């Protein structure tokens, strides 16, 4: 009872071991439930009880085997998993990089200068309302089914929202700071690049971090439509053979990649200890 009442107190400080245990608990519960469910399906199947196809719920050993297969070089010396990871990583990285490169300056200028605000904000608002996947067929027609259309999809999906977010962050810079910079002899460009940009940079990283899953979702969607390598391509390919082990392996890998990317950005963001103080 005491433990339950403490759980609902706002000032409870958890010891590290308990916090780590609570962090891991949901993952362990999901894994245990999944294995129990897989065993149940197999039991029912063995005893002739109508149930799902056991292939739909592979055991951890099957997933591990699928992983080993995917890192074994094929007859052409190619490693399937590496090819897929590199293809997806390139599209994802380039798309995100272009979005950040364009979105940062545009957002700062839209947030800082009224002329840019009047010109850029309505189009940003309008573009951010369009579901980028609806544009995929148009992109395929314009750019073909090569890399350009997939990268363009990420840029279209991430850029408008990112620009508006950077503009919002820029507007949050106090006008006093701008005036202070002007009294120190800063020109308009210097205010944008020497005062505003460094101040909002950690928040820009946070915004990119928030866009990671959107960009990743878009690249998977594009790959599932037209590609010859990539995580999305492979998952949709092996789906035809009901190769659930490979699908789950790739889903878990995708999750790990996202987790690593998120951690990377979070660590980078936390390097700026003055942020949000």
């Amino acid at each position, binding site marked *: 009872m005491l433990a339950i009442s403490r759980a609902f107190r706002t000032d409870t400080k958890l010891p590290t071991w308990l916090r780590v245990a609570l962090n891991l608990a949901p993952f362990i519960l999901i894994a245990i439930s999944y294995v129990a469910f897989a065993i149940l399906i197999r039991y029912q199947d063995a005893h002739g009880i109508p149930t799902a196809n056991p292939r739909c719920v592979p055991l951890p050993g099957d997933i591990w085997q699928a992983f080993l297969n995917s890192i074994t070089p094929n007859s052409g010396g190619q490693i399937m998993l590496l090819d897929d990871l590199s293809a997806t990583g390139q599209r994802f990285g380039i798309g995100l990089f272009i979005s950040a490169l364009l979105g940062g300056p545009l957002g700062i200028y839209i947030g800082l200068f009224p002329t840019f605000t009047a010109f850029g904000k309505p189009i940003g608002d309008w573009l951010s309302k369009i579901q980028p996947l609806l544009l995929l067929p148009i992109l395929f027609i314009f750019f073909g089914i090569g890399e350009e259309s997939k990268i363009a999809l990420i840029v279209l999906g991430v850029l408008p929202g990112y620009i508006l977010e950077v503009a919002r962050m820029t507007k949050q810079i106090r006008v006093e700071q701008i*005036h*202070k910079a*002007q*009294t*120190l*002899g800063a020109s308009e460009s210097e205010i944008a*690049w*020497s005062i505003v940009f460094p101040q909002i940079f950690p928040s820009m990283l946070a915004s990119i971090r928030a866009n990671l899953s959107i960009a990743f979702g878009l690249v998977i969607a594009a790959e599932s439509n037209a590609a010859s390598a990539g995580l999305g391509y492979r998952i949709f390919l092996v789906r035809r053979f009901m190769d659930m082990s490979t699908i789950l392996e790739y889903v878990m890998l995708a999750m790990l990649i996202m987790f690593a990317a998120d951690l990377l950005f979070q660590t980078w963001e936390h390097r700026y200890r*003055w942020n949000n*103080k």
Partner: protein
Amino acid sequence: MKYIIDTQHCTVSYPASNKGGTSSTVLNDISLQVQPGEFITVVGTSGCGKSTILRLVLGSQFPTTGVVTVNDKSVTRVTRDTGIVYQNYSLFPHLTMLENIAAGPILEGTGLLERLLCKPIVAVLDLLKANALLKRIRYSRIRDNARAQARELAKRCGLEPEKNGNKYPFELSGGMRQRVAIAQSLAMKPSILLMDEAFSGLDVHCKQEMRDFIHEQWKENKTTVFFVTHDLDEAVMLGTRLICLSQHWTDEEGKPGVGAKIVIDRKVAGGDELPSKFVDSEEFTQLVERISATAMQKTNPISITAFELTHPDACKAKEQLNAS
């Protein structure tokens, strides 16, 4: 006579914001002349337009009618001629204490492109301790000079640069932050230092320290200071000349006026003394009592004519008028 700040018949009013609304006048025909080296304190109740005057001088706001000149030039934008210290947000949070103080000279001495290109190169050379190469880069030389100047200024302001130089503003106390903000402005050697409620957020002890500090800096640097505050004691203690603004005044016929007017403009006897030593003077007590009972009240509007004559110059003018 040459004035460093000259506001001539400045009125600031805002148009009606919505249908059926009325326009509002913040300042009504304000004329204020400041001579070089004066320590002007502007006092008044909340919302009386003190900060509006400061913004007019700074150049971040413009009068609806009238002209503001600083150094004989009409004010059209914020320039490096004026330094500003706010109650908050004066420092750049992403820069350390020394970087904040050195920010102005670096911004002034180097171009944006030069900084963007040279900063990473200089950072690498710094790590490699390649001093010979560093000396050949103009940006590095300007940066080092600015840092040396910042260190010197920080020492003069009692900031202990060796101990606190690499601390970010959030790691400094409120008083230290204000000292850094003042040092940051002084690094640019401005002809006018504007201060907007600069000591309002500080505790009593720190406030007293800062009053003495700004007074010492004023005497040392001979900068004209334009200090806006709502604290009457502070205004009387600090300034050599006190300006009191009020929205509650009546004209010669007793009709209530619209927008703030200068109801007191007078030199403070003993205003050159250090604020902490000025507290007990008779002049101080009398002046504070008189202004508290009249100009700082919102209840009974005060006659503008009665107060305008408190200005020594105004008294002199009236005597001359009567004599003629």
